[in-house]
């Protein structure tokens, strides 16, 4: 890496715009050596240098591992900064698409008033809802950044997506009262888990006298998503 730095400087000095500087004593007499880039850490420089040449499989696997790591953090929400520090929006996108796909095929395709939410409606609710909640928390003086908050809210939909999967499996067995009770319990538990997980990540960034003001919209958001999952019924 040090050699790279030195070659770059010498190349620049020999290009035409600097021809006028050849009168100055600096250019040829004293060889300029050293590292021009800010020494953040040699590992950072290694990464920036090496990710262009690595095989695509490595890049994808590394991103997938990061996403999977964050899923694990949502499953066991302790106050870690992993979700906040390296935010990404791949996980929320995957979860949102999965949830919207699973909510398809709902009842009554022919009804004009009824029917479950369409794919676009689920998408809009999840993303627009996350954006509104993020704006709300920023306007109330939160210190979390916009994309970090989107990342946290998106990842914390994971328990609800798992609940949706469980609900679909339960509905395969029938749609009587017993299955409704089971679905109710599963959806309530995952709704509580989602809200708890996201407040564990978001609550620290708010001033203490406004925590309830920030937590309530998150509660409403996951409640509405939970409601969409609970009322899903297949046409039989």
């Amino acid at each position: 890496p040090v050699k790279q730095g030195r070659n770059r400087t010498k190349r620049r000095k020999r290009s035409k715009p600097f021809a006028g500087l050849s009168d100055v004593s600096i250019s040829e007499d004293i060889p300029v050596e050293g590292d021009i880039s800010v020494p953040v850490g040699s590992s950072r420089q290694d990464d920036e240098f090496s990710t262009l040449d690595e095989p695509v499989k490595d890049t994808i696997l590394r991103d997938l591992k990061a996403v999977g790591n964050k899923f694990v953090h949502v499953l066991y929400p302790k106050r870690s900064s992993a979700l906040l520090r390296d935010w990404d929006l791949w996980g929320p996108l995957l979860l949102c698409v999965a949830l919207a796909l699973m909510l398809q095929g709902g009842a009554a395709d022919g009804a004009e008033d009824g029917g479950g939410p369409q794919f676009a409606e689920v998408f809009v609710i999840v993303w627009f809802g996350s954006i509104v909640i993020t704006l709300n928390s920023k306007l109330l003086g939160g210190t979390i950044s916009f994309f970090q908050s989107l990342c946290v809210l998106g990842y914390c939909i994971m328990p609800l997506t798992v609940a949706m999967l469980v609900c679909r499996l339960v509905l395969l067995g029938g749609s009587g009262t017993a299955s409704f009770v089971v679905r109710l319990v599963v959806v309530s538990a995952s709704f509580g888990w989602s809200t708890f997980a996201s407040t564990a990540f978001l609550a620290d960034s708010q001033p203490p006298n406004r925590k309830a003001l920030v937590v309530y919209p998150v509660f409403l958001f996951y409640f509405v998503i939970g409601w969409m999952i609970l009322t899903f019924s297949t046409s039989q």
Partner: protein
Amino acid sequence: MASANDPFQFKEFEEAGSLLEANRDATTISIEDDDVRPQKQRKLGAMTPDDEEDNLANDDKTELLSGQKKNAPFWTFEYYQTFFDVETHHVKERIIGSMLPWPGKNFIHLYIRRNPDLYGPFWICTTLVFAIAISGNISNFLVHQGEPQFKYVPEFQKVTIAATAIYSYAWLVPLALWGFLLWRNNKIMNLVSYSFMEIVCAYGYSLAIYIPAVILWIIPYEALTWCSIVVALCLSGSVLALTFWPAVRDDHPRVVIAVMSAIIGLNVLLAVGSKAYFFSTPEPGTHDTNASTVRLSKTTPHT
């Protein structure tokens, strides 16, 4: 607050001294709160004359800040941040105040007090939209439960209709009212004038009583439903009426009657319209029982 401080108190002298170092010409105020925002506002060096109308200690900070609000132009983020300058207990007080009308107590003067917020109106409207949609869905399910032909549908599209109705009530009606009051203010000198945000606040918080009312409508008893509608209407209508009465009372009597009846009439329309559209009434008479007896007689011999 400023006059009560002894400027030679040891603690305050340090703060005032450090502020004077930064800006020699500033008048300094010392507040015991050590939030970040009042310190930032203090360094701007302005002092507001609104102190004398405030008697509660915990609202002093908001009073001092109110004269410095809206310094930012409206296309910056900070401008909208001034509308979210509320704390949890403020929102709670405002919601409770909007449910309990008291003759002589003006909601805007008592609770909003030059610190209108957008948090309350927006989230109360959103909650009401989802409460109406979800309660309407549950109530439909409960009403039609026994019928064999009934197929449960989530009726998700009604959320958009509910959202349109409630948001336009909560934002367009205050706009119209504000414009109307502004126009009348040009003709008749009024002591009381409200800014647009304060009217939005009044309307937004007055919708808060409907949230428990809408949840009560799930229970399919007509008497209970109409009783709760009447109670909710009385409470929220009287809060609105008491709030806007001082603003129009000096006007021509016909204008006064027109404005008051418009305010209350729109409120009634919203409540009754929501009830009629989103909640189906159990009809104990002709329609449903005839259909179900016809079906029963086809399947089993029924006498």
